């Protein structure tokens, strides 16, 4: 490493360089993108929808349901008031008028006149005894002496004291209804005062309610027969086409569709002490629209938007994930090629080291054998000359063969297969150092080994590890001046790892450069290294399941630590 300018101690951990990930990795990446963007995009939409849904609902209630409810309740009360007023009048008459006066036709006629004047709507009056016989009658019809003993209303008034009938036509040929009250005498004897009231008076108190043209209010009985004129749903005595939900005692409002499928708001309430049920219908205005339609539209819009957003997200994520995968594949490919190139270079260097070591002794053997041949040739009368010449030529031929091998080794370049075998790190480090021993000697470098006792062998790739340590040692050699120190320490790190420290007292690396030290093509070597050595080293260590760290201080030195797993993961 070339001298560096500044910086302090630092430690660098690198992300693993480009490597092709599995399909599941990109699947997961895609999923993460889809889910996170969907959440970000859809959550506000959903929240907004819920808020507007609630707001709409509230507004809708305010605008349409509440008025209908209030109107239903008010009308129910005014109807009840109307009926109880007439019941009270009748009760007062029966309580305060002597029986004799009521039984007398003229007396009864006077009472009817008073009632009709005070309350209106009274058509006729009849007095009936406990046997159901009409004792007297006042009114426009000739009904005196009629027998009501077999009529249901008569039995009802017998045990309930009062009775309000449904609307009917009867003898009178126009819609009316009957109210009756009972006066108890001694024993089981009693008499009943029965009044007929024109329904018109009842209708008026319903229509008294200010109804807009899209609304309707009318009475029905418990069988759904219309009792008062309806705007939309038929005439009196016709069957009302609307079906009501179960009744309570108070006014209730529901949203419904009428028989023609038109959306309506339906208010309804039983009128107390009578067979009548008040029905109030408001056809939903065009302005407000139907709540159900509105709701459908709102959710339809949200569903459509969500679908559109999801489509865009899925398409975008698929596109992005594919781009990332392609880029990774490209990077991995480039990195693979670089690794290959560097491997060739490293093996070439290794071959060169070996060749040099062997060529020197070969040169000596060659010269010694040559000298022997010279002596045999030049000495006259040499005993067994031919035999000796044969032997010497054989040695020289072998030397030639050896030199052929070493010369070939210098151009040696072969792709190494990854193989796992038991490796003793101390022996491996010493072996690698052997290649550089001569340089260490020439430059008077002080190389020290600090090996922990009883180091177990590790399972790893010999060739790759040689390359790793040769690279690091080469860097250390380049960093130290002649006479510098290089320390190699091997020690166990936990139960799973063995660590190798390679420390030099060289120029050190600045913090800035330390960040880039494992990046491909990063070099500080003057004259230009390839910038691949440490990048490849890093890649190999990672591939072997290990970790590489570097600490450095400018002017103090650099320490590389390689952690290797004792057992290789499959």
């Amino acid at each position, binding site marked *: 490493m070339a001298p560096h300018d500044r910086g302090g101690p630092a430690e660098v951990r690198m992300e693993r360089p480009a490597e092709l990930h599995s399909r599941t990795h990109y699947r997961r990446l895609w999923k993460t993108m889809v889910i996170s963007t969907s959440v970000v995009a859809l959550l506000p939409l959903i929240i907004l929808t819920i808020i507007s849904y609630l707001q709409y609902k509230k507004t809708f209630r305010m605008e349409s349901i509440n008025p209908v409810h209030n109107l239903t309740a008010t009308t129910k009360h005014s109807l009840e008031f109307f009926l109880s007023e007439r019941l009270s009048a009748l009760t007062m008459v029966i309580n305060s008028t002597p029986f004799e006066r009521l039984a007398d036709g003229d007396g009864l006629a006077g009472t009817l006149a008073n009632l009709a004047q005070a309350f209106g709507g009274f058509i006729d009056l009849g007095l009936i005894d406990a046997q159901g016989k009409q004792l007297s009658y006042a009114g426009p019809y000739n009904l005196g002496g009629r027998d009501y003993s077999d009529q249901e209303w008569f039995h009802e008034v017998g045990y309930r004291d009062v009775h309000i009938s449904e609307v009917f036509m009867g003898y009178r040929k126009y819609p009316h209804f009957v109210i009756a009250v009972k006066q108890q005498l001694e024993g089981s004897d009693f008499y009943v005062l029965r009044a007929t009231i024109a329904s018109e008076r009842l209708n008026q108190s319903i229509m008294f309610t200010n109804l807009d043209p899209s609304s309707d209010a009318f009475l029905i009985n418990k069988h759904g027969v219309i009792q008062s004129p309806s705007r939309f749903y038929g005439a009196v005595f016709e069957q009302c086409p609307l079906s009501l939900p179960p009744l309570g005692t108070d006014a209730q409002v529901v949203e419904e569709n009428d028989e023609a499928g038109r959306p309506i708001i339906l208010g309804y309430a039983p009128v107390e002490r009578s067979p009548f049920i008040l029905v109030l219908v408001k056809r939903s205005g065009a302005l407000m629209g139907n709540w159900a339609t509105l709701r459908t539209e709102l959710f339809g819009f949200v569903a459509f938007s969500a679908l559109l957003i999801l489509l865009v997200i899925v398409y975008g994520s698929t596109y992005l994930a594919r781009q990332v995968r392609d880029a990774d594949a490209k990077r991995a490919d480039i990195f693979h090629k670089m690794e290959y190139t560097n491997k060739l270079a490293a093996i070439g260097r290794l071959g*060169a080291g070996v*060749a*040099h*070591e*062997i*060529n*020197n002794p*070969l*040169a*000596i*053997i*060659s*010269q*010694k054998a*040559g*000298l022997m041949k*010279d*002596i045999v040739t*030049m000495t006259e009368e040499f005993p067994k000359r031919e035999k000796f010449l044969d032997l010497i030529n054989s040695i020289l031929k072998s*030397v030639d063969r050896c*030199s052929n091998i*070493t*010369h070939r080794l*210098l151009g040696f370049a072969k792709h190494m297969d990854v193989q796992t075998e038991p490796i003793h790190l101390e022996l491996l480090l010493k072996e690698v150092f052997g290649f550089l021993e*001569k340089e260490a*000697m*020439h430059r008077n470098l002080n190389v020290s080994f600090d090996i922990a006792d009883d180091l177990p062998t590790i399972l790893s790739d010999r060739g790759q590890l040689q390359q790793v340590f040769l690279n690091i040692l080469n860097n250390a050699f380049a960093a130290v001046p002649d006479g510098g120190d290089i320390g190699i320490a091997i020690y166990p790190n936990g139960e799973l790892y063995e660590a190798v420290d390679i420390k030099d007292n060289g120029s050190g690396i600045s913090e800035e450069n330390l960040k880039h030290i494992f990046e491909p093509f990063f070099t500080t070597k003057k004259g230009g290294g390839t910038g691949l050595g440490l990048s490849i080293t890093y890649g190999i260590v990672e591939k072997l399941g290990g970790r590489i760290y570097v600490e450095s201080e400018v002017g103090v030195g650099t320490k590389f630590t390689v952690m290797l797993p004792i057992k290789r993961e499959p």
Partner: protein
Amino acid sequence: MKPMRILVVDDEIEFVTTLVERLELRSIEAEGVTRGSEALQRIAEKPFDIVLLDVKMPGIGGMEVIRKIKQEHPEMHVILLTGHGSAEAVEEARLAGAFEFLMKPVNIDELLRIFRLASSD
């Protein structure tokens, strides 16, 4: 062939002595040393026709020795000998003025042929 004075420089003493002996058997005046510094000293004492020089030696290396020789004695032929040679090393040797760059182990007949080439140069 005119008489030649040859200096063999190599850190392997066995190589030096044997080669010197073989050259002398062929009536070539040869001397051997094992250090670059020693070689420069011998050359300073008396000139040689040809110097056979190992590239990699402890102390002053072959490349430095050849540069010093060529400074003082540009006419002196220097043949470099090495255990391994790269293209860069060959180029460096040429630039330094080496007559030839040979790979170890070298055959004596090849060596003599180059000596003759050098002396007739």
